[in-house]
């Protein structure tokens, strides 16, 4: 059998490595209301309203959320500390830094996106003889619920979820110890999908991303 803890942590790690939009290392300035650039385009880089951004190599690198974005300016919710333009700076949008991992106490913060996970196992079954040493098929679901901000349109949340799904396409192999777990999806079985956009109280709009998976391992019968 696969180690379910390792499997859940492997899914988390793959989500945490998500990059939706990035400026790369470039010349950026911070203003009292956000960030600006003289070259390149924030829109072309993929930034959208509602995305959480992580600045780097500024003097102050406070995580923020995009209120509005143009080619040359990002306006954030909340004030920023002004800094003159500098080199080798970057702004990255990825998995929200607020994460309600399973069985951890969590309360959402207003105007701050977050994610929540569910890891589910489905009934397993032997695929071959004998029982001891035969091939065991295990299946399950990894569900990541992305809570974006309400009232900022669909682009940010849809692009974020699309980026997440792109990391879990059918056939994707995720190593779990000595075993391999594979994302399901074919003509005869459902693959990963994003659910309906659901507006909830508290200022969030959520989408649930469901990733079905399967794993084959050697069955061991313990005496």
């Amino acid at each position, binding site marked *: 059998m696969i180690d379910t803890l390792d499997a859940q942590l492997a899914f988390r790690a793959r989500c945490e490595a998500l990059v939706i939009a990035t400026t790369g290392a470039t010349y950026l300035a911070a203003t009292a209301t956000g960030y600006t650039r003289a070259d390149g385009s924030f829109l072309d880089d993929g930034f959208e309203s509602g995305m959480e951004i992580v600045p780097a190599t500024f003097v102050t690198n406070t995580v923020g959320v995009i209120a509005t974005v143009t080619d040359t300016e990002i306006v954030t919710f909340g004030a920023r500390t002004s800094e003159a333009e500098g080199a080798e700076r970057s702004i990255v949008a990825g998995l929200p830094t607020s994460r309600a991992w399973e069985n951890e106490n969590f309360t959402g913060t207003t105007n701050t996106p977050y994610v929540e996970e569910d890891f589910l196992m489905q009934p397993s079954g032997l695929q071959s003889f004998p029982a001891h040493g035969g091939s065991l098929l295990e299946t399950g679901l990894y569900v990541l619920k992305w809570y974006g901000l309400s009232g900022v349109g669909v682009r940010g949340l849809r692009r974020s979820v699309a980026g997440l799904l792109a990391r879990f396409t059918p056939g994707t192999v995720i190593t779990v110890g000595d075993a391999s777990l594979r994302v399901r999806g074919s003509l005869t079985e459902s693959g990963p999908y994003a659910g309906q956009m659901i507006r909830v*109280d508290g200022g969030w709009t959520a989408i*649930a991303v469901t990733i079905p998976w399967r794993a084959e391992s050697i069955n061991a019968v313990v005496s």
Partner: protein
Amino acid sequence: MSFTDDINRFTAKVRVTSLESLVNVASAVKSSITDGSPVTGSPGQPVDTGTLKASWILEFDSPTSARISTNVAYASAIEDGIGSHGPMTLRSPTGGFHSVKNTVLGFSRLVASVVGGTTGRGGAP
């Protein structure tokens, strides 16, 4: 008795068995969503007032298709466990989240377990 008679009898038997299989599979799908299933791993619907669980209905659109549905507005939120102030806490002693997902993904197993019983040839466990 002629070969034609044999064929007609076989055809009638297939038709009856197919209808029986559709009814049994559709009923099993609905039951997996509402009450849970050891075949699919679905936990079934959580229960507070019973409104959501009772709202699921099974309809036969044709001799070859069935539809299981609910008109409860918060069904999607319960299915995904999407809460309004953070992770949703399950307060029901029965049921859980993701019943529809588990049922959909375990559908082939459900069919095998039900059809095996319909045909008398022993379905999957």
